[in-house]
């Protein structure tokens, strides 16, 4: 099973990378861009097929390591 974890900076936490990319896009005349936020995607291949159980496990992975919940939020999805 493939699990996709998307990690984003929390709303209200300034994203310096996003801001720099936004400026670059504007410099390239992509003036329609209003805002840019950059996050990361972590793709996990897992053996277990018990959906409920693995989602709980991945949540623990996020809390313990994958995300820093002081500044980041995470979303977990199962790839179909």
């Amino acid at each position, binding site marked *: 099973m493939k699990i996709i974890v998307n990690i984003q*900076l929390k709303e209200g*936490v*300034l994203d*310096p*990378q996003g801001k*720099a990319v936004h400026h670059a896009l504007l410099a390239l005349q992509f003036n329609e861009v209003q805002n840019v936020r950059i996050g990361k995607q972590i793709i996990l291949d897992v053996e277990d097929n018990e959906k409920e159980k693995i989602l709980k496990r991945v949540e623990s992975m996020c809390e313990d*390591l*994958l995300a*820093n919940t*002081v*500044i980041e939020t995470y979303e977990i999805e199962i790839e179909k």
Partner: protein
Amino acid sequence: MKVVVAVFPGTNCEIDTKYAFEKIGCDVELLFHKNNQLPNNTDLVVLPGGFSYGDYLRSAAIAKFSPVMNPVIEFANKGGMVLGICNGFQMLLEMKLLPGAMKRNQNTHFISKYQYLKVISNNNKFLSKTEVGDILNIPIAHGEGNFFIKDDKIKELYDNEQVLLEYCDKDGDKENPNGSVSQIACLCNREKNVFGLMPHPERAIEDLLGSNDGVKMLEGFLNNSYSAN
């Protein structure tokens, strides 16, 4: 005084840190991260700067799971002195021994330069040999030193005298190289035994190299006349 400097794959300031503490008369031991206990007579643990585990995922995110961190956390919780410099500060944040988190520098650049710092509180062992308002000249070198903490926590940090240093210019006026909340450069915990800072005092111990302001900072740990009240 016995100083233990923990060494992780990717840290690169342990030798400078050892040199600096030896220069002020300490007995210094480098301790590899796979050790799961500290020497019995340890007085101070230093988590050095560098790029532990390549700073993969986030700065210092992986170092917190090294075996050596278990006795370090236990030592800190029992009141032992712990100092985290740069990547070491990031480790302390990741381990939640200090509050807050680090983000990418506001200008997204890696910043490596001398930086003036203002002493905000000296009511702690680390800065006990400095005076409030002193301006110190200490190098910084980091890409993720943009300290973040929620607005409602900032006042508490100042009220408890947990903010020790702020970035400033040479006259002590406001300057913010990396975007940190309230220009915070150095923090301690409420109990004042765990210290973290982004600047590198161990790189400022010889006039010849531009500044020796780091000496009076590190010497605070030797200051037996300071006692926490």
